């Protein structure tokens, strides 16, 4: 089949017009992914096209990019699902991270935020001689957050990060929950204390973008809600102040997701959302603290959202 890739390129070594869109028209097999097509372009048409990739099997996390405006893995996104009626696919680098060249972004801030959550097991007391005894269920539960391949797709599309670069962001918070949820970790309260700070777990507006973007089902927003719930239960509610109502109203006005979320709650088979809604009074907090401009909140096209709900129901 024929496909036209419209690739947003960036070349810092060019004197002018460093940023431009280049079209590549290719003949490719039907089963090709966006990454397959980019590799073919690089090999046969334009060696200068820069894109990170290795595994081609959605495990190394190298190839996150935006396809038609939404972040995901190039190697997991089928061309057939992405072409418009003229066979065009828009390819851009991830958002919220500086572009180095073409589809390659600088992920150093991403990693600094991961580091900020002390992303390693901090066991309590002396190590046992053998393995820690823990139920298989407790380990299985961690698989979801463990499944994160640090690709950055969620960060790319996070609406809070667009306006508040101090926000830890979905990937780092999901990583934090990976340890909070681990029965072997002994630093939970310390972690809560740190995540309670500005830029931490309360700054998420639950826009759902990270859940949409994540190619590995990590559902960072759900993990952030888990963090909030467990932190609140552990008494980390003191800083959640009077601003609830204000922010609450603001956010709803901006995106209108609340209605959709309520809709979701009524839908049988949705896990977690109900719990999240229940959690909402403690959940929403003064993420802007007066300093920052109001958040530019992308409204979620309801079609996409509803589609997700159906997918979830079918999964269950």
């Amino acid at each position: 089949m024929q496909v036209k890739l419209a690739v947003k390129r960036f070349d810092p070594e060019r004197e002018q017009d460093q940023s431009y869109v280049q079209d590549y028209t290719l003949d490719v097999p039907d089963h090709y992914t966006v990454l397959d097509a980019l590799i073919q372009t690089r090999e046969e048409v334009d060696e200068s096209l820069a894109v990170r990739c290795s595994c081609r099997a959605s495990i190394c996390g190298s190839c996150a990019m935006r396809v038609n405006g939404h972040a995901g893995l190039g190697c997991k996104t089928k061309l057939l699902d992405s072409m418009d009626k003229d066979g065009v696919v828009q390819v851009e680098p991830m958002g919220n991270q500086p572009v180095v060249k073409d589809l390659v972004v600088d992920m150093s801030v991403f990693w600094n935020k991961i580091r900020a959550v002390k992303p390693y097991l901090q066991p309590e007391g002396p190590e046992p001689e053998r393995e820690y005894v823990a139920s298989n269920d407790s380990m299985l539960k961690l698989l979801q957050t463990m499944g994160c391949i640090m690709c950055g797709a969620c960060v790319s599309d996070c609406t809070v990060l667009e306006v508040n670069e101090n926000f830890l962001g979905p990937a780092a918070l999901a990583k934090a929950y990976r340890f909070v949820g681990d029965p072997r970790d002994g630093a939970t309260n310390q972690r809560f204390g740190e995540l309670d700070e500005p830029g931490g777990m309360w700054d998420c507006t639950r826009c759902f973008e990270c859940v949409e973007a994540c190619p590995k089902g990590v559902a960072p927003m759900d993990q952030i809600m888990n963090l909030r719930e467990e932190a609140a239960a552990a008494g980390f509610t003191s800083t959640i102040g009077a601003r609830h109502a204000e922010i609450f109203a603001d956010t709803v006005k901006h995106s209108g997701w609340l209605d959709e979320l309520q809709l979701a709650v009524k839908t049988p088979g949705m896990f977690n959302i109900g719990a999240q809604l229940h959690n909402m009074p403690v959940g929403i907090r003064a993420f802007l603290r007066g300093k920052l401009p109001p958040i530019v909140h992308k409204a979620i096209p309801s079609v996409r959202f509803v589609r997700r709900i159906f997918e979830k129901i079918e999964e269950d």
Partner: protein
Amino acid sequence: MYEHDVVVVGAGLAGMRAALAAAQQGADTAIITKVHPVRSHSNAAQGGINAALTDRGDDWEDHAYATVKGSDYLGDQDAIEVMAQEAGAAVIELEHMGVIFSRDETGHLGTRRFGGQERARTFFVADITGQAMLHVLYEQVMKENVRVYEEWFVTSLIMVDGECRGVVAMDIMSGKIEAIRAKSVILCTGGVGRAYEPSTNGLIVTGDGMGLAYPAGAALMDMEMIQYHPTTLKGNGVLITEAARGEGAYLLNSEGDRFMKTYAPNMLELASRDVVSRSEATEIQEGRGVDGCVFLDLRHLGRELIETKLSYINEVALDYMNINLADEPIPIQPGMHYIMGGIKTDVWGATPIPGLYAAGECACVSVHGGNRLGANSLLDTVVFGRRSGEAAAARALERPFGRVSEHAAYLDETRIISLLDRKDNGDSVAKVRLAMGETLNEHLAVFREEQGMQTAAKAIQQLKERYRYMPVKAKGKVFNTALVFALELGFMLDCAETICASGLTRKESRGAHYRTDMPTRDDENWLKHVTCTWSPDGPVVDTIPVTFTRWEPVERTY
């Protein structure tokens, strides 16, 4: 010039384990890696890691014997004993670091069965064991604040008076070339899968460490021993883990027959990989395949098991083949997967070159001999990664830095400039690589014979010639991946040359090296490793005897 006591090249499992060990010994340690650590190909390991936990009744000698037998008696038994004995501690250590290994009903570590072994002693994290381990080791690297030069590509070793005194590397982000002085260098650069097409390996697996060590004088050993994995997807080569068979999946031919009962009546689908891959290839050759494939059938395992223990391959099957494993058998074929050979080292990762160590898939200790058992490679990376880190640190801590010329990076700078200066002659990195990959996949695959290997050796020579004039069309400094690919291709061509030379040297069939023109194992003459050392006229081939401790070679049946 940069300077560190110990420089580790590579941040896969072997590299990070080595770096942690060296740092813990008190050596100033740095990792240099061409991709961010968690992008390393160790990520892709699905099935698990072997260990005999002796305090719960398993027997390390049984693991060692399975490994010896799996290796078709080409593994060095002293090294295999070391690995099997240290395996339990290595797995417990990983668990303590945070790996979320699957548990049994009592909350202790759970196991699954893997090929070539009677006992279930493979520890696992669903079917993302490599990812789980790699991310945890990186957590430890962050915790210990080990310096990581991310996206730096090592272009050569600094050799002075026959000693390795550091590396030259290019910062891919800026294109700058720098010398990094070190007292010990550990190569942990992984395998050479991309020299084949297709391969289960990621695009970054290009034999760089072997290509770096070889011209510096190190020997590449057992390079003919290339493992074809029995269950890979046609076309893109993506792997379906052996854990599928470990959990009970069947292999079926076009007639719906579990054909392994003819080839390995006891172990069936869980015979060692060389045996299973050969059996599949035979079925396909004799007309009982479909489209060059046979089938892997998981249906009887049930949806729940598939979704909890094999969810990643379920995802892969759906993404790339549009097949739901619980509903349909999936077509698979043997595909290039792993190299048992590599840089010859002792059990401390040391090469005969002072200051140079190697561990992981790029090294050949040798524990895998003619055929690696599934789930022994992850074990190899952490056991010998740690050992090489300790040995390299010990060496570094007892001596001052050796003298290194200010111009150490100069040769590589000019080499790269001349690469970029070449005129476009219509050739390209991609074309040369593809030709190499298809050549090896045709002639040095599951079945081999003299004529074919000669043809391959000649073709590789011609490709090396083409390589000398091959242009790099992208000229930029910042993130010039075309340049990186060109350098990688140089490493792969050297590896390919030694793969052919070693294959032609071994005049028998053993492990993965199955010659249709010499189909029997010849213990009288060939209980030997084949080594290649560099010379201006091509590889100089030699042999060295295999080390035996207690297991005499017997006929291998499964």
